[in-house]
């Protein structure tokens, strides 16, 4: 795991190291099993097309989990993910890389904890934002 990030060292505008994912149809099947979402639009090509989709699409919640990983990676062993939200602007298909990105919006102290609000999003291979959201992480103070 990379070095711990401290509350003292970030400020509004600080970037969060990007996380690249390469979703495959196999990953969508594993996600279906792990999450309990067995909607056929995620693994049955014919069914997906019959609903008007161009093909199978990635579960929204899998994209949420990717963005969550972006934040828990950044929070490190001494930080904690406190809040997370996202919405799905457009659909993504497996077979193409997704890049999870984020940046610090603001930082503040509350109840003795250092909290950092972040803007997070996913870009597809064309650089288009397909998913965006917010996260709040508690980061430790540098001693």
């Amino acid at each position, binding site marked *: *795991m990379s070095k711990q990030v401290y509350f003292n060292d970030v400020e509004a505008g600080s970037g969060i190291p990007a996380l690249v994912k390469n979703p495959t149809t196999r990953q969508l099947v594993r*996600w279906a099993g792990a999450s309990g979402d067995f909607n056929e639009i995620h693994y049955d090509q014919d069914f997906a097309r019959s609903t008007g989709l161009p093909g199978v699409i990635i579960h929204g919640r*899998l994209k949420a*989990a990717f963005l969550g990983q972006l934040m828990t990676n950044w929070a490190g062993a001494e930080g904690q993910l*406190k809040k997370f939200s996202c919405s799905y602007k457009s659909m993504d298909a497996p077979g193409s890389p997704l890049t999870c990105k984020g940046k610090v919006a603001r930082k503040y102290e509350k109840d003795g904890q250092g909290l950092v609000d972040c803007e997070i999003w996913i870009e597809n291979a064309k650089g288009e934002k397909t998913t965006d959201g917010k996260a709040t992480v508690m980061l*430790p103070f540098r001693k």
Partner: protein
Amino acid sequence: MAEEWVENLKKAIGREGKPSQIHIESSMIRSFIDAIEDPNPLWQDEEYARKTPFKGTVVPPMMLVTSMLSGGGTRPELPPILLTRVLDGGGEWEFFAPIRVGDTLTITTKLRNIRETEGKLGKMLLLFFETTHKNQRGEVVARSQGTQISY
């Protein structure tokens, strides 16, 4: 719209589903972290995790975004929705306390509100759900909001 089926749904606002109990097992964590490919040792390396403020491995908080913990599987029974296609309209999760393997979560979801709207998918009905996650000690470990788009 003001159609009867929508009015019936409005009457269901506030309705809570039956609480479901889920025992958190290490195989669930394994499936989750393998599915998303997250090698963070906090979730699986006890020796590593013991040396952190968590004092032991914890359940990845994002495991709560799975359907079984905050999705369709926990929702209250509702009158029929005549827009039969469904999309996930996004969600919000707030994490109050770590969850550990061996915990039993009691999950209760209620329909908070509904809203009719129109967009690029045509006529849509948004359903707003709120889920409360409590552990075996009665502590609220998380709360989540989820939006279902029926179209």
